[in-house]
């Protein structure tokens, strides 16, 4: 049967990997190509690069990074951040990425998902969703602009809309858990995983191997994403995978 995937995420700013807490306080965490190679050797199933560059030069640097990664790695990788139109998708996929992820631009103009899926196929289009619990309505709301803007979308409604338009996978980040290392938000993950027929990647809150296990057993995720615990070598992909195997999760 298919295995559960462990996906290290690299936030890239102006060509360097950085990591923050709840979308703030960025720290340098290394060279993206070097880190990508290390993760590949350690058994990462896939990689996600999020370009958080603010400048045009930073975006151009990202295309170089993608080319270098594609030349060296024999595992799939997704690139997101700043993908606003079909031409951005073309640039990144032609540079060698396997998938692109869209977030804010897709909320602002959902047709972007449709266009991407029609041109490249659903398997190339990942819908990244940042969600936060909303006390008032007792639902999870979708946020855009790196978590700064709240939208009216309830998370499962937006996930379903995205899949209907051709998204092949959902990358779901819990803004409440992100950077806290206290575990994923299983309620949120399970909610979305049950709502859509495509794979869901749980993101935000991974602090140790047990959290990864719970993403699968409690959150019903298809993949679990983590950043800082791998970057700062608090645990390794190998350790996580042997822990998962011990608890009967099917991993590569």
């Amino acid at each position: 049967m298919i295995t559960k995937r462990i996906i290290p995420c690299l936030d890239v700013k102006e060509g360097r990997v950085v990591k923050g807490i709840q979308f703030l306080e960025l720290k340098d965490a290394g060279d993206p190509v070097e880190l990508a190679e290390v993760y590949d050797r350690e058994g990462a199933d896939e990689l996600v690069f999020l370009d958080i560059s603010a400048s045009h030069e930073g975006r151009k640097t990202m295309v170089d990074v993608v080319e270098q990664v594609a030349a060296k790695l024999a595992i799939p990788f997704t690139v997101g951040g700043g993908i606003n139109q079909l031409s951005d998708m073309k640039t990144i996929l032609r540079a060698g990425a396997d998938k692109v992820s869209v977030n804010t631009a897709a909320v602002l103009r959902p047709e972007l998902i449709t266009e991407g899926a029609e041109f490249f196929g659903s398997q190339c289009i990942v819908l990244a969703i940042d969600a936060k619990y909303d006390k008032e309505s007792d639902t999870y709301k979708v946020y855009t602009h790196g978590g700064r803007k709240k939208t009216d979308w309830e998370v499962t409604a937006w996930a379903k809309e995205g899949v209907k338009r051709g998204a092949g996978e959902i990358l779901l980040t819990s803004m409440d858990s992100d950077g806290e290392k206290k575990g994923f938000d299983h309620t949120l993950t399970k909610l979305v995983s049950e709502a859509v027929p495509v794979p869901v990647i749980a993101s935000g809150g991974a602090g140790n191997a047990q959290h990864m296990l719970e993403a699968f057993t409690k959150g019903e995720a298809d993949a679990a994403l983590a950043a800082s615990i791998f970057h700062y070598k608090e645990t390794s992909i190998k350790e996580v995978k042997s822990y998962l195997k011990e608890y009967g999760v099917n991993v590569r």
Partner: protein
Amino acid sequence: MIGVIDYGMGNLYSVSKALERVGVPYFVSEKPEELKEADAFILPGVGSFGDAMDNLGYTKLDQLIHDMVSEGRLLLGICLGMQLLFEESEENGTASGLGLLKGKAVRLKAEDEKGNKLKVPHMGWNRLSFHNESPLLTKTEQGYAYFVHSYYIDGMEENALLASADYGVRVPAVVGKRNVFGAQFHPEKSSTVGMSILTQFTKMAAEQKVKK
């Protein structure tokens, strides 16, 4: 020399990069007269079956593929490229394929026999089981390969099944008959397993060139 067939479907870059990593000479072309010079062919592809067949027909690359295969040159279809080798697909109605192998592409089931839910597309790493022996797989271990697809091949000839994966149904993962081969997963993204299959394919192509 490997000819990568460009018919406007999907990401040729990752296949090209993988061939560079293996260290084999290759070229990418959409022109039948250029592709004719190749010793072996890779037919990549992501996207929809019907569009792919339309593009192959429009560019007359379908005829080239038939000619080259009947001359005995090697062909490897990858992902959608493998499904195109078969007779037909039920994707978006019914579309005819190249008909080089028997069988048809049908949609993956949304649950297994026990009623457990399965996500479609089948996306991720799945373990290969080997069936018939083939020179393509002699150097490959029975490890994991990276799949992304929503349709699988049903009703194929058992003797053309080289490897399969389990996803509620038996998913043919590597197929091969005479000089026609296919991989449902992405060898270019399947780490050591994938790279060893690509290496072996290019070796077979080189040996064939010597025989010619």
